[in-house]
Structures are given as C-alpha cells and as structure tokens.
C-alpha cells in the first residue's frame, strides 16, 4: 500500500509539474503572435497604409503642416482611407479572438486539473472506507466502482484494478496491526492537505490570469502603440532625407506638406497652388505635370529643373500619384519630390566627359589612319625604289643580250624586231631610272657630290653621245664662252644627266635644223630669273668679290657678243693646229700651240684667279629649232608624267618624267630651270647653276696636266686641246656612216690581233683614226674634216707608223670606252649587206653610255681573248670585300665556277694589289671601312687614264718600290697593264649605293647583294669570256 501511495502521489506531482510547464509555455506564445504581425506593421507605411501612416505622422511632426478637416474627410471618403480603417479593425479583432482562444484553453486545462484532484480525493476516501469495514463484500467496492464508472472517467477502472490487486497482497501481509493503520491514516491526511493547498494555488492563478486578461482590454491603446512605432520609424528614416512630401487636392491646392527644411510657413503653402507659391522656371511645368497625372489617373515620375528665387537652381525628381475617392473619382494627388541636383550635375558632367572621350577617340583613330597612310606612302616609295633597282638589273641584262644579239648575222626582219626590242627595253630602263631618281629626290636621299670637272668636256661629251645615237639629220653644236673656267666644282653626274635629258628632249622634238648648248657665265642671277637663288649666293660671296666679278663678267658678256666671230677664227686655227699636230709626230709642237693659244683664254681667267674660292653662276641654254611648246602647255611642263599634250605623248612617246627630274635636280643644286618657246620655231631650256671655282688649284693642275700630257701620249694632247675649245659641232650623221662604211670592209675581225701590234697597214689605222680623232675632228671645224676625208686618213697613217703598239692599243680601247663603237660594230657586219646601206640605223642604236661602255669592254675583251689564245693564263680575279662571310660565300661560288680569286679587305688594299699585279676582273664592294669601293675605283681609273698613281699618293697609298718598275715598264711588256680593268661593284642597297654612282666612279657594272650563283656566272660570262 505504501508503495502504491507514494507512487500515486508522485504521479500527481508530476502531473502538476506538467501543467505548470504548459502554463509557462503559454505566455511565450503570446508575444510570438504579436511578433508575427510585426513585418506587417513595417510594411504598412510602404504599402496600402502609406497614406494613413503619413497622415498620422504629420499630425505629430512639427515640420509638417496639415489640414485636419480635409484629412478626416480623406480617410472617410477615399477608398484607401476606409480600407486602411477596416484593416486596422480586422487586425484588432484578430488579436482579440486569439486572446479568447488562449483563455479558453487555459480554462480547459484548469478544469481538467480539478477533475483529477477530485478523483484523487475519492480514491483516498475509498481507501479509508476499506480500512474501516474490513471484511465487507467486494460487491460494495464494485458498486462504487460502477458509480464512478458512470461518472465517465475511463482511467478509474484501471486504477481501481491496480489498487485491488495491491490490497490483497497487503491484506495478506499486515492487516492486523492497528498502529500501522493509524500511521497510514495520518499519512493520507497529510497528502490530502497538500492536495487542497495545490488546488487553492491553482484557483489563485486562474483568477490572476482572468484579471490580466481583463487588464489587456482596449484596442485603441494597442493600435496607437503600433502607430507610434511606425511614426518613430518614419521619422528616423525621413529625418535627413532631402524629400518633400505633399498632398494636393483637385485644384492642386496644397492640403498637406512635409518638408524637412522648410523655407516657407505652412500658412503660406496650404490652400495654394504651386504657381501661387513659386515663380520661375520649372514651376509651371510641375503644375502641368501634376494636372496631367490628375487627368490621366496614372502615377508618373518626372525630372524637373527649377530655377526660383526661393531656392535657386535645383533639379527635383517628382513622383505624382493620383488619389481616388470611393466612387473612383480623382480627388487629388500625392506628391513626392527629391532633390537630385547633384546627381544631375554629375550625370551631365559624365555625359560631357563621355562625349569628349568619344571625340578624342575619333580624333585618335583619324590620326592613326593618317599615320598609317603616311607610313604606307613612305613604304610604297621605298618599295618603288627597291623594286626599280631590282627590275633594272635583270632588264639591263636583257637589253645588253639583245644588243649582243644585234651584232650577229640577222636578216632584215629579225633586225627590225630586235631594234624594237632594244628600244623598248631602253625606254623601260629609262623609265625605271627616272622613277628611281624622282623617288630619291623626293625622299631626300639624293646626295650631291662636289667633284671637279671640266664643263667643256661635259658639254662635248653630252653632244657626242647624242650625236652617236642621232637618227635624224640634225646639227648638234655646243658653244662655251671663253671665260667659263676650265675646271669647276659641282655634281658633274647630275649636271650631265640634266644636259643629256634636255638634249635628248630637244632632239626628240626637232625634225630639222639644229640643237645646241650655250654655256656662259652670268654675273647676277638676281637680274635674271633666279632671284631667290641669287640671294643665297650673295650671302656666300664677299661683297668686294661680288663687285669684282660683276665687272669681270660684264667683259665676258661682251666677249659673248662677238663670240661667233671669235670662234670662227678659232676654228681655222684649231683645224690647222689639229692637223698640224696630227701630222707631226713630235708631241711638243702641238703643246706649244696649245700654250700660246691658251694664253689668250687664260688671261681672262687670270682675273678671277685673284679670288681664292669663288662661286660662279653658269647659265646653260639648250636650244632647238623644233616644234616648240604652246603657251598653255608651259605650266604643266615640269610636272610629273605630263607632256605638252596627249597628242605629243602618242607621237613622241616618253615617260614625261624627264623634265620633272631635271627641274628637281636643278633646284636641288640651288639653281633654276626655265623655258622659253615659240611654236614651230623652237624652245630654249635654260638653267642657271652656281659652281665653286678655286682658281689657284686650277691653273696649277692645268700645268700639271700639260706636263703629264707632254710626257704622255698623243691622245692626251687631244684632251688638252679640249680644255679650252669653245665650240663643237656635230654634223648630220652622213659623215659617220661614210667613215664606218669605208672602214668596214677593210678591217675584218681576224685581222685584229695581228694588225694591232705590228702592221701599220692603212686599214687598221683607219679604224684607229675613227676612234681616235672623232672628237677633235668633229669638234673642231668638222666641215673641213668632212671635205678632207683623205686628210684625216693620212694623218692617222702617220700616227700609226710612229706610235708604239702598246700605246695604240691603249688609246683604241680608251676611245672605245668613251662610247665610240661604230667601227667595231661595223667591222662585225662587214659581210652583211646592210652594213653599207642600212648601217646607219643599227649603228645609231647606242643611246645609253652605260651600255656602250659595256659593249666597249666586251669588244676590248675580245681582243684580249684573242691574245689569250696564245698564252692561256687563268684569269686573275680580285675580290675586294670586308665582310668575312661574304668573302667566304663569294669564294666558294667562284670556286664552283672554276675560278680562284684573291681577296683583299678594303679599297687601299685593292689599290695596292692592283699596283702589284694585273687583274682581269675586280669585284668591288662599295661600302667598306678605311677606303670604300668608289674611291678605290676612282684611283684605279685615274691611273689607267694618266698612268700615274698620283691620286693614290694623294689618298695616302704609297707605291710599292719593288713593283713600281714593272708598272711603268708594263706599258711595253704587258700591253694590258693600261687597259681598263673591268671593275664590278657589289652593292647592297638601291638607294645609298646607287648604280649611277658606281658608273660615275668608273665602275663597269654592278652585282646586287647578296651575290648568287647566277649573278656571278652572268658576270663572269660577260667579262671573262
């Protein structure tokens, strides 16, 4: 029983505790419930309840102004207002219902507890009964049980059963002691008391709860608390926001406004419209905007820039929202404005920057494009130059091959075809040269060289070359005033180029009459056409000198005036002296003649000799009696690719580059090129150029020349005579053909080797005469020569008898190189019928000095080859090259070609090597340290021309003592020592080491680098047949 009791009591306590736990849990549910509403609370100001909240806020906010009546009306009339109210009500009701539900639940729990307590009480009482009627029938218990059962407590049954079974055990154990039962009764009593006490506590608690519930009472308080929270929240958020919130009614009168930083009192605003309040830009716009929203009934946003007296220039982002009544009419607008001035300003700045960036980018791309184009142009020019260079070398190969071919036996048609081929090739070559020149001048690569030269020789040579290729019946003449210095300094190559160009132009457009060159000193180019250039010049000159020179030249001009007469006189003298000289085998007499004659010329020069170094302006007129140039064509004459008319272009051909190049070259040298012309009467191209003269050197070098000439050979005296010759004339080519036809049949190639050295037979001399005397005979009073053909014949004969074989050979080959080929050509054509009748055309095909020189050397080689047949030595080849690798490669290639070569590393070594030995061929690098190929070639050529190594000595190369003997003796022992050694340039660059430069310095040909097998082979084949 005890166990049972204690267990039941503990059970009861446990239940109590359970209940208390439940009770404790309940209050925690309460705030949770409210919490769940909280997010709703927060949402409200933003959502449906916005208007309501705002109104509430404004009531409390000091900064806001409100029309209370209107507000109440708003809340009751507008849809949103009533919605707001009903929502609040619903919320309150919901809360209330919740509270009621909770209370009910608690009540249920309490009543259940009470039932249990009563049940316990009953149990206890039963125990008690059982104790008192110890042995009563069990039925009574059963009755009770039934009674209880009827009470409807299901648990009772089980409890009862347990109790009963327990009781039996207890009955069996200790039912007889009274003390035990008493103690037990007391115990039960205590339990009962505790139970009653607990019940009392519960009741108290219940009452407390009831009271609490009652205290929670009114919804208004709670609502106002919620509102207060929302209000605080809004205030917190809006405190510093640059926001204006307002409500305007149908007439757009302000009914409510919230403004954190008010600049007007609320009475100034309420009941007024925007327009009534503000003045300035933007006010009207905002008013219209609001009206628009009011009419459309759709909320909208807009950015409006205000400029009012009130707050200056400011931009507001305005949000306007229509407010509807319950019946759906718009009764006003809610308005919210935010100051976005800074943002707008930033935005505008950004836009501006972006715009600038865009503009800059556009500019950049434009610039890049320009740069690109410029680069392209530059590259194209470079490319053109390189290309031209690359094209030229194979083309010259083609042309020279064609020329060689023209020397073979051909029938008439073949020859015609070949002539077309050659002339086309020549045209292309000329075009390429022109392009190269132009691009050089334009790209500023063209370098002018200052070399001493003799203007007379240049003029003569140009005319001679032109005459050689003349295909018309024209007289070519050159007049050089006596006061023109013998030697001047300038870029002879370019001047010759200009002259050649102008002359060939003149010939091209002249069908009969004459073409000529006048060269004379002009004092003051400023008086003439070249004013600017003159100024430049005058700066150079000392004023005293200038004055002197003016005087000097005035006399010279007067000389010019009766120039013709003078020259006519001279002609006779020249002719006489010439014949005399040729007849006389002592060289002294002609020199004397020259000297006496020179005195006259030099006296005038003496005047200039006082000045150490002066600049002389030489004017050169190139005149013709051709078709002339119409006046309207003159302006375009010097432009690139322009000819006087397309008609001319068709008729006369040509590239249209010639005059442009001439002009550019003349201007590059500081001069001026002009033209005067009369249609059908002729044109005169005039260029005036400054030259440096150093008279002191001049006269001394003259003397030297004379001396060396005296010791030298006959042909030297011829050149001596040229020095001062003032007039050259080349008659129509009838003469030339006469010569060649007369020589042709007599001199056969087979005869050459033998007849050269030993026989003085007239036929050979005829050949020599042609080569040798062609300059003087045609240069000096050619009329006489024409008439006295026999004369010339006899003079040559006399030379032939007296001169040594070596000299003869030397002079012949020299003349050949100067471009006089006719005889060789004609001699090859001896047996062909055309040689007499049609030789003129073919003979005259040589236009190009380059080519003619090539032919010359080849013809020269023919003879040497003929000699070689006897001795058959290996050809000696010298390679002058500083680059080890190039040496290695070239050497190896030559080895494969079956040649062994000697190698030296620079120009000086090359000169030394040539002083020591004879070489059949020299391969000369142009660009070398110590001494470059050009200078070395010049020195070698000067030796070949003069027989002395003076130039070498000047350059600091000493003549090797041991070998000096053979070199001088070599004239006799080795007939080839004074022969022109073929020198082939090896060039690397089209622009800086031009072919012209090579030719000008006396080189015969060039091989562009890198050298290849084919190029070398072609070269060997050409020069070492």
């Amino acid at each position, binding site marked *: 029983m005890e166990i049972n009791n204690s267990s039941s009591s503990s059970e009861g306590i446990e239940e109590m505790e359970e209940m208390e736990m439940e009770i404790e849990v309940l209050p925690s549910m309460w705030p949770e419930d409210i919490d769940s509403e909280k997010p709703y609370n927060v949402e409200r100001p933003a959502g449906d309840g916005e208007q309501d909240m705002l109104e509430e806020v404004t009531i409390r906010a000091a900064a806001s102004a409100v029309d209370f009546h209107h507000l109440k009306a708003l809340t009751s009339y507008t849809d949103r207002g009533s919605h707001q109210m009903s929502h609040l009500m619903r919320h309150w009701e919901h809360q209330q219902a919740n509270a009621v539900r909770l209370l009910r639940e608690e009540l249920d729990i309490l009543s259940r507890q009470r039932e249990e307590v009563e049940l316990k009480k009953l149990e206890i009482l039963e125990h008690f009964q059982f104790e008192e009627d110890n042995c009563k029938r069990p039925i009574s218990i059963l009755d009770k049980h039934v009674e209880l059962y009827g009470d409807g407590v299901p648990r009772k049954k089980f409890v009862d059963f347990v109790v009963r079974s327990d009781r039996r055990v207890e009955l069996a154990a200790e039912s007889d002691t009274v003390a035990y039962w008493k103690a037990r009764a007391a115990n039960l009593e205590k339990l009962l008391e505790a139970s009653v006490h607990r019940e009392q506590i519960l009741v108290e608690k219940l009452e407390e709860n009831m009271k609490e519930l009652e205290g929670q009472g009114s919804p208004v308080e709670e609502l106002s608390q919620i509102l207060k929270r929302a209000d605080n929240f809004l205030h917190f958020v809006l405190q510093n926001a640059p926001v204006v919130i307002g409500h305007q009614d149908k007439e757009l009168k302000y009914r409510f406004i919230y403004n954190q930083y008010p600049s007007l009192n609320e009475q100034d605003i309420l009941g007024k419209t925007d327009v009534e309040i503000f003045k300035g830009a933007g006010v009207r716009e905002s008013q219209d905007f609001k009206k628009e929203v009011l009419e459309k009934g759709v909320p909208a946003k807009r950015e409006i820039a205000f400029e009012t007296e009130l707050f200056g220039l400011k931009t507001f982002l305005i949000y306007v929202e229509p407010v509807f009544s319950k019946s759906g009419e718009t009764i006003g607008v809610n308005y919210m404005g935010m100051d976005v001035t800074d943002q707008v300003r930033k935005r505008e700045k950004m836009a501006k920057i972006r715009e600038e960036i865009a503009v800059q980018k556009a500019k950049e791309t434009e610039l890049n494009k320009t740069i690109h184009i410029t680069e392209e142009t530059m590259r194209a020019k470079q490319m053109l130059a390189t290309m031209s260079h690359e094209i030229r070398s194979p083309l010259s190969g083609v042309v020279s091959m064609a020329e060689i071919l023209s020397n073979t036996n051909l029938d008439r048609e073949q020859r015609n075809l070949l002539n077309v081929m050659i002339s086309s090739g020549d045209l292309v070559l000329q075009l390429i040269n022109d392009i190269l020149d132009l691009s050089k001048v334009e790209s500023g690569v063209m370098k002018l060289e200052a070399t001493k030269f003799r203007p007379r020789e240049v003029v003569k040579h140009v005319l001679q070359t032109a005459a050689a290729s003349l295909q018309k019946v024209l007289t070519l003449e050159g007049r050089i005033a006596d006061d023109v210095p013998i030697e001047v300094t300038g870029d002879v190559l370019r001047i010759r180029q200009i002259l050649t160009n102008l002359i060939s132009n003149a010939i091209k457009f002249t069908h009969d009459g004459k073409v000529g060159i006048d060269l004379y000193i002009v004092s003051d180019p400023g008086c003439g056409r070249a004013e600017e250039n003159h100024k430049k010049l005058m700066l150079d000159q000392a004023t005293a000198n200038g004055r002197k020179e003016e005087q000097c030249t005035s006399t010279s001009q007067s000389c010019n005036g009766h120039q013709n007469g003078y020259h006519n006189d001279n002609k006779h003298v020249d002719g006489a002296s010439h014949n005399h000289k040729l007849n006389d085998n002592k060289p002294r007499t002609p020199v004397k003649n020259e000297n006496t004659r020179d005195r006259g010329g030099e006296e005038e020069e003496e005047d200039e000799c006082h000045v150490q170094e002066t600049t002389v302006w030489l004017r050169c007129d190139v005149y013709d009696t051709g078709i002339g140039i119409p006046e309207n064509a003159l302006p375009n004459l010097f432009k690139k690719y322009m000819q006087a008319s397309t008609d001319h272009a068709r008729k006369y051909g040509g590239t249209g580059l010639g005059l442009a190049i001439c002009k550019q070259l003349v201007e590059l040298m500081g001069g001026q090129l002009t033209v005067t012309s009369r249609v059908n009467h002729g044109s005169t191209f005039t260029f005036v150029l400054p030259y440096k003269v150093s008279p002191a050197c001049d006269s001394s070098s003259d003397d030297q020349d004379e001396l060396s000439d005296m010791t030298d050979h006959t042909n030297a005296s011829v050149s001596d005579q040229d020095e001062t010759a003032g007039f050259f004339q080349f008659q129509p080519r009838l003469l030339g053909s006469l010569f060649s036809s007369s020589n042709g049949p007599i001199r056969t190639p087979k005869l050459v080797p033998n007849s050269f050295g030993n026989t003085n037979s007239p036929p050979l001399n005829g050949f020599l005469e042609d080569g040798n005397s062609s300059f003087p005979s045609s240069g000096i009073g050619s009329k006489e020569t024409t008439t006295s053909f026999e004369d010339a014949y006899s003079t040559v004969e006399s030379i032939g008898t007296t001169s040594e074989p070596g000299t003869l050979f030397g002079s012949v080959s020299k003349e050949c190189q100067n471009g006089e080929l006719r005889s060789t050509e004609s001699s090859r054509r001896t047996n062909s019928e055309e040689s007499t009748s049609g030789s003129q055309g073919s003979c005259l095909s040589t236009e190009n000095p380059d080519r003619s020189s090539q032919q010359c050397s080849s013809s020269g080689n023919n003879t040497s080859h003929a000699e070689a047949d006897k001795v058959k030595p290996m050809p000696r080849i010298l390679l002058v090259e500083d*680059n*080890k690798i*190039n040496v290695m*490669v070239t050497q*190896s*290639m030559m080895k*494969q070609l079956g040649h062994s070569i000697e190698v030296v590393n620079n120009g000086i070594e090359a000169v030394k090597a040539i002083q020591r030995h004879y070489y059949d061929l020299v391969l000369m690098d142009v660009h070398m340290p110590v001494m470059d190929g050009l200078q070395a070639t010049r020195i070698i050529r000067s030796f070949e021309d003069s027989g002395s190594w003076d130039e070498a000595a000047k350059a600091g190369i000493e003549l090797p003592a041991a070998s000096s003997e053979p070199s001088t003796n070599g004239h006799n022992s080795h007939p080839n020592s004074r022969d022109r050694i073929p020198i082939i340039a090896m060039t690397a660059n089209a622009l800086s080491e031009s072919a012209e430069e090579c030719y000008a310095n006396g080189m015969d040909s060039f091989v562009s*680098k890198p050298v290849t*097998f084919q190029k070398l082979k072609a070269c060997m084949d050409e020069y070492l047949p």
Partner: protein
Amino acid sequence: MDVLSQLRHQLADYTNSLHRDGFLDDQFSQLQQLQDESSPDFAMEVVSLFFEDCQKLVTNMARALELQAVDFKQVDSSVHQLKGSSSSVGAARIKNLCVAFKTCCDSQNRDGCMRCLQEVNRECVLLKNKLQTLFRLEQQIISAGGSIPM
C-alpha cells in the same frame, strides 16, 4: 632505309618551314648548293662563322649604345656588316631587322636602336637553334648512310 627516308622527309619539312616562316631565304639554298665532296660542311662553317660574327657585332653594338654619347656611325657600320653577312647566309629576318635598325641609326634614335638590337639578338638566338636542329638532322641522315644534298 626506312629510317633514312623518314629523316629526309623530316629534313625537307623542317627546311620548308624555315623558309615559310621567313627565317631563311633562297640565299641559304645557294649556300647549301655550294656544298660538295671537297667541302661537305660548307654551309655549317659559314653559318657558325656568321653566328660568331653576330655575337661579336651584337656585343659591340650593345657596348656602343650603352655609352653616354652614342657613336651612331660605329653602330651603323656594325649594322651594315651584320646586314651584309645576314643577307649572304640568307638569314632573311635578321636582314630585314637590319634595315629597320639602319633607319634608327640614321635618325639617331637610341631607344629604337636598343629595341632593334634586342630583336636582332633574339632572332640570332632563335635562328641559331633552328639551324642547329637543321644541321643535326642532316648529320643524322649522313650517319644513317644518306647523303646531303639529297
């Protein structure tokens, strides 16, 4: 025999690629044609001489360009040398670089020269490696019993 033909194939491919990528031009083929029984290693000799030369020239130029006052004439003559050599062995890229280098020298553009020098140096090393591979291939062919040129 199979190995040999394979090697030959490889060599041909490699040579072609060098030509295609512009490392070499026809001048190199010329060099190769110059090889015969009497000078079987001619190309290699020339090329190794070339690289020695390159090394020297590059060092010279680098030294010259480091100086306070650059002697552009000296640099220019070195560039000219290099250009001549490279065009002789057919080192096309180096030759082309030299052209640019020369213009830099002419305009006395020190930075440009430095850049070109570095480029040249780089190209030299690159070409050296390539050619070493090429020659190794050739030697393999010879040791396999083949002959060069094929």
